[in-house]
């Protein structure tokens, strides 16, 4: 019904040149995404580390040379040997096996607590930023109060209320990290909701809810991805501190953090005990940070090179 000759012609002229490309648009998108994601060389390496760590966690029972709990009190603090590639700890347990099993605990603490913090924090930030008024004040004052207490002390307090155990450690670490996401998201939302496309959606009949979910949320997300990858590392480290202070994972369960704190006691006699799990923590945290950055860039259509 509404057609202008010249415009139709213009459109047809445009279409002929690009038809084939548009047909496989979805394939093209995923190809572009992969290209943008792996654009920098360290990302390939970091992504490899992440894959290896996940495999270690999944396959720990299969690939571990020994049981992580079996004590050999006659052979404590032994150096590397063919039987124990990384030696044994203060109770004569195989360090390598404990590191493999520790991957399970450390990765799941990192992932689960970050997920808890991210989900709740981002939701609170969205509500505070978009609704505003007293809701905003209430949420943000609670967040400020939480932030005024040091992370580890807060986690210790929550841990003592909730009790020990892997699940509770994840939960308490998740809770202490909520305010970071809430603040960051709120700031983003305050900025994004001023933008013309949010106004445009409002004129186009979008309710507050659809506008928030469809436009404000996706456009407030990218700094959260960076924060999440940084928090992933902090979560592993907080778990280590909690374990060190005796409020973390129940012994004899192995976690990298607990191993560092155990090995720390023997730093002079057998530095491998503390250093190797430390290296695993470092590599994992680094790899997740790099992957997170790459993910943010690849998800942003403006940063993704055409």
């Amino acid at each position, binding site marked *: 019904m509404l057609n202008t000759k010249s415009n139709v012609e213009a*459109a047809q002229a445009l279409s002929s040149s*690009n038809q084939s490309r*548009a047909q496989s648009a979805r394939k093209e998108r995923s190809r572009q995404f992969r290209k943008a994601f792996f654009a920098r060389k360290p990302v390939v390496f970091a992504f490899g580390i992440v894959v290896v760590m996940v495999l270690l966690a999944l396959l720990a029972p299969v690939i571990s040379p020994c049981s992580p709990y079996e004590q050999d009190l006659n052979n404590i603090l032994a150096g590397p040997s063919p039987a124990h590639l990384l030696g044994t700890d203060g109770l004569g347990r195989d360090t390598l096996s404990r590191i493999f099993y520790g991957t399970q605990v450390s990765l799941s603490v990192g992932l689960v607590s970050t997920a808890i913090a991210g989900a709740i924090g981002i939701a609170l930030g969205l509500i505070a930023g978009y609704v505003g008024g007293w809701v905003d004040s209430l949420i943000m004052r609670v967040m400020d109060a939480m932030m005024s207490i040091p992370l580890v002390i807060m986690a210790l307090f929550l841990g003592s209320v909730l009790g020990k155990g892997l699940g509770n450690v994840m939960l308490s670490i998740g809770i202490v990290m909520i305010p970071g996401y809430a603040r960051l998201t709120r700031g983003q939302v305050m900025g994004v909701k001023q933008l*013309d496309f949010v*106004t445009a959606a409002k004129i186009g009949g979008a309710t507050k809810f659809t506008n928030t979910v469809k436009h404000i949320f996706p456009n407030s997300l990218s700094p959260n991805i960076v924060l999440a990858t940084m928090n992933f590392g902090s979560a592993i480290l907080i778990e280590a501190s909690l374990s060190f202070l005796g409020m973390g994972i129940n012994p004899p369960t192995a976690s990298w953090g607990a191993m560092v704190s155990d090995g720390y006691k023997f730093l002079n006699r057998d530095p491998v005990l503390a250093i190797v799990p430390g290296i695993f923590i470092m590599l994992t945290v680094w790899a997740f940070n790099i992957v997170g950055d790459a993910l943010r860039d690849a998800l942003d259509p403006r940063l993704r090179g055409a």
Partner: protein
Amino acid sequence: MSHLLEVKNLQTEFKQSKGILKAVNGVSYHVDEGEIIAFVGESGSGKSVTQYSSLQLIPTPPGEITGGEILFEGHDLLKYKPTGEEMRKVRGGKIGVVFQEPMTSLNPVLTIGRQLEESIRLHLKLDHAASHARAVELLGKVGISDPESRLKEYPHEFSGGMRQRIMIAIALSCEPKLLIADEATTALDVTTQAQILELMKNIVKETKTALILVTHNLSIVARYADRVYVMYAGEIVENGTTEEIFKSPSHPYTIGLMNAVPSLTDPKDRKLVPIEGFVTNLVNRKDQCAFLNRCPYAEESCGTLPDPLLKPVEGEDNHFAACHRKITKEAKRTKAAVDSTREVKAFTEEAKKDPILKVEHLKMYFPVYGGMLHKEVGQIKAVDDVSFEVYRGETFGLVGESGCGKSTVARTVLRLNHATDGKIIFDGNDITHLNDTELLPSRRNMSMIFQDPFGSLDPRQRAGDIVMEPMKNFKLKMTREEMDHRVEELFRVVGLDPAYRDRVPHEFSGGQRQRLVIARSLSTDPSFIVCDEAISALDVSIQAQVINLLEELQQQLGLTYLFIAHDLSVVRHISDRVGVMYMGRLVELADWKSLYDHPMHPYTQALLDSVPVPDPDVEAGRETKIIKGEVPSMMHRPSGCAFSSRCPHATEACRREAPPLVEKEPGHRVACILA
């Protein structure tokens, strides 16, 4: 005779991941003492890069000046190190620069006196007292009253126009031989723009300084420049005296530019002729005419010949054009031409009986908070008692300088703000106090086109989803297939390829994005569209495309536009009736013809006087009456008529009482006691 500045065959390249971008490709020009030359071209034409190259201000890497000579007073500037002592003496010493953005080029934490005196001391080696005296003198010279005390103020205490004056003062502080104004007035309002350009012109006359105006605005060129260089794709495609360029443009691009801009002297039925297509990608450019793909005069042979060089135009002394063919305004186009006239509908009395929008005594006040307790200390009366009506099928233009409240009117009419007082009657319904749900049926019938096409599109949404979203939101009871079909139809209507529906906004060019915004605004088949500065962020050739599209759509769909713009020529071109706003009030409202032909309000007259016309003949015969002063702050509105503080005819009576908007002639309403 040697020139003040002579640039020969300048080449500047930028290294990019995909190859080498030749931003400046063999540009030669010269400027003499006391001369005003202009560089015209659209964004990306290399006009600014050329100037920065001559000052060795190109970021290296990725940029590099790979060839040419820049002779300034006989010395080749390229022999100097970019950061060396000699170059710094030239830059800011002998050549002063005024940039587009006056806020970012001044340091916000230093007083302007300090910034000005620093520059003087650095280049003229004067002591404190002498440099202070010189600063006072300079501020006076650029038209800032009470310079002694204003030197102690910070940049934010000045208005945009004042800051640009200060930038000029800094540029002039060392008595430069050459002043470069890079889009120096683009961000300013028309009346301020005219003041600043007039100021620079006077300085040139008095001090024999040369001036290079870099601009995209042909009208400014016609009014001020002696000679013109037209740039396209990093090359000068035409140069000559202003008169020659405007009288007998000889390059297709120059002709295209002139046909694309509306002017205050146009016949109303003139149709703008856009330049089709896009600038060719300059990365790894081929040795052929860069304008080839957009040229309406191109012949087959043009594609086989190498990049054309500037050749003298026959019968004229200093006029050169880089085209293989001999092109004149009357030349036959090889590509089908767009009609040069359009149908202008006569506005009948009948149409006036059916207003789609009635605004009655609309007031929109914003509270101002201050003090320790964050108390309300005042109000900004952004819109103060505005009444008008928009008839079905017409284009109602709303003009005024920035901050006059025209956008606030639009946003309030669309219920994005809650009006403080007054009534908004849309399509017979009073929508002033409806809540979001009650508003939905009316919202379906209105939409908006924004100034910044990129900002008004969600960067993460696909083009197709963007256009489809309103259909989903308003629950139009359409099946998925119907919606898909409608999206494709809308894409075609606005001249976009439906195959692009999976792209995200940044994969479109600026003009395409604005088309996408228009497609979205049409998706629920509304009858009323607000265009808030819808074309001001676009290049002139693209601007013409969008204006033509809006006009075509209006004819086919019977749309009504509320067209808000600061460009008076565009508003004259597109509008049936026009309202002029000043400081939150409508000061004049009439049909376009009586408003532009017999403006009655002194402010409207001042606005129209400030707008240059892209025709040197008209400009030469025109007496330039530049209005004095600046728009006062909204917080300190003058008593009585708000314009009384700047009005040349103001009397005591004007300052006592604000005049109401009354009908002085049939259909012509004015708010002035003297009219």
